[in-house]
């Protein structure tokens, strides 16, 4: 399998009045063609920032990004426009990410018009019709405005818009978080179908581990800007090396009464990502933190083949 997109030590720091905020720190990931990488973490862990960096919606502070083996770290506006034909995004809030003054067909048509894909009006309209069919919207709604539709159908518009230019890669930033579970299931199924049909590669950013488990091939867990653990999805639910991943898994409420896993209550809340010291970023909440954890941050490395983590004691947990 070939690698579609790769980051090497990608960094994004924000200047704030209180100091440098490390939103994304040294993130190195690879995503293969046609696969889905799920990025999970709690608010403020840098997962959305990471997705935005890949699309150049934000400029990175350091590190490297490669798309189909081409370096896309430093590109000018013209090149970015060219790149975005291949890389699109589905946004979190289908209530806020659609222009309220445009009709459904105008919204889906806009990317096509920006790139002047077709010559005649008829061709544009045909393509929009086709896209609407693909994402499961009836012709009836073509002239409706977003406010007339419910969340599920709005998110279908968002998906249709992202697909318009036949991209290879889509960053999905919490695409189902704002939806009810029964609608969420419809959208997740749609996204899986589209992936099969068009060979899409996804980055799926979410805080919901059960959603990510369902849709991803690999999972990457982030905490305060760094990747704490990354491995194939099946493996993650069998064996976790990082204490944060363990705590996260144990904290998820599950709709089942036959739960017998050991529950871990994390102490405290996220520490500040502004000017983090040299310590492990999870040390203050970690039950297993030792002296070394407060002194130096652990390196990110492979514990077993394909399973990466950043913890001083990962090898002890084998």
């Amino acid at each position, binding site marked *: 399998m070939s690698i579609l997109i790769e980051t090497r030590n990608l960094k994004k720091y924000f200047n704030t009045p209180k100091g440098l905020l490390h939103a994304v720190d040294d993130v190195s990931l690879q995503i293969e063609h046609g696969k889905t990488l799920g990025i999970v973490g*709690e*608010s403020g862990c840098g997962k959305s920032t990471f997705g935005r960096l890949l699309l150049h919606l934000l400029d990175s502070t350091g590190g490297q990004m490669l798309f189909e083996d081409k370096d896309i770290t430093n590109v000018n506006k013209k090149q970015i426009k060219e790149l975005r034909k291949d890389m699109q995004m589905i946004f979190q809030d289908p209530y806020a990410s659609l222009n309220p003054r445009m009709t459904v067909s105008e919204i889906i048509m806009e990317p096509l018009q920006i790139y002047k894909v077709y010559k005649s009006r008829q061709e544009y309209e045909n393509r929009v019709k086709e896209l609407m069919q693909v994402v499961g919207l009836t012709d009836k709604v073509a002239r409706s405005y977003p406010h007339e539709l*419910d*969340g*599920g159908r709005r998110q279908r518009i968002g998906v249709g818009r992202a697909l318009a230019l036949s991209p290879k890669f889509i960053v999905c930033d919490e695409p189902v978080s704002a939806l*009810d*579970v*029964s*609608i*969420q*299931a*419809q959208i*997740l*199924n749609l996204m*899986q179908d589209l992936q099969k049909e068009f060979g899409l590669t996804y980055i799926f950013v979410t*805080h919901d*581990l*059960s*959603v990510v*488990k*369902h*849709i991803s091939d690999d999972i990457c867990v982030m905490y305060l800007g760094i990747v704490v653990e990354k491995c194939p999805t099946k493996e993650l*639910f069998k064996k976790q090396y990082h204490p944060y991943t363990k*705590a*996260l898994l*144990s*904290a*998820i*409420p*599950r*709709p*089942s*009464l036959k*739960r017998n896993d050991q*529950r871990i*209550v*994390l102490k405290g*809340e*996220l520490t500040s990502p502004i000017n983090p010291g040299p310590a492990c970023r999870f040390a203050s909440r970690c039950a297993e933190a030792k002296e070394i954890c407060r002194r130096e941050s652990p390196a990110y490395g492979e514990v077993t083949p394909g399973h990466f983590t950043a913890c001083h004691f990962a090898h002890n947990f084998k």
Partner: protein
Amino acid sequence: MEKTILEIKDLSIEYRTDEGRAKAANRVSLSINENETLGLVGETGAGKTTTALGIMCLLPDPPGKVTGGEIIFQGEDLLKKSDEQMRKIRGKQISMIFQDPMTSLNPVLTVGEQIAEVLYLHSEMSRDKVEEEAKKILELVGISRDRFHEFPHQFSGGMKQRVVIAIALVCNPALLIADEPTTALDVTIQFQVLQLINDLKQRLRTSMLLITHDLGVVAEVCDRVAIIYAGEIVEIGSIQEIFENTKHPYTVGLFNSIPDLDEERDRLEGIDGLMPDPTELPEGCKFAPRCKHCKPECETAQSIEPVDIAGDHKVRCLLYRASGEVTQ
């Protein structure tokens, strides 16, 4: 026999707007026993919050209007109380935790003042005594008493929700209504808050109505569950019954929509279609248009009465006859 603390009988609420009458709650009946937590589960627009506001007599009127039913709390009908009488009950005997801790606190008052306010309103305690009580409840919800004089913005989301819980519990109410208390929080913080709620419930022996869309949260804290769809309770029963002997096709659909962490599934089953518009509810079963088992009589039945399955497990569906056997 457990003592019933709250009993709602056939409560109907509608919102009268220019577009028509939105029937938000339709003959909702449920009861909560002493020391018990009932989970009210449903999707957006199902009428969960409307029911809760109805109990508190806090419906925005207009457009909200209670069109029928009774809310019996400790033997008295709340709908017959005057505003003055309700003010004495709210905060003291029934209190509420709102969904969003970021907006439910007053930003210009310290958290201490906001807790103390409830005590000033409902008790005759002296100033010093009030402050002491407020500090005690802060400690009870896991916040240091030194933070009494701090403002809400100095607290994180999880801590703010603890303050909201402290305000709700400071008068030791008999009934606590929690409207999506952890939805705005991250999972690890959510887990902390749920543990706290469980712990306090046992210590203070408070009954609770927990409103949520998350069946996982229900599994953590509830004793009984009511599933609400389009303003109707479609299924109600003990948590074991609802989770392991699920009957109503909508409840089944809800469970199937949630990706399972323990099982491998290629596809989510989900539920096709959308919740009906509350201004134009279907005539028969409200779930019929989305139901896989829908029969002609489901669409025409004038009123579908709840059927007893086992114990207090009731389901509102024509598929079942009494004692849970499936009708052919």
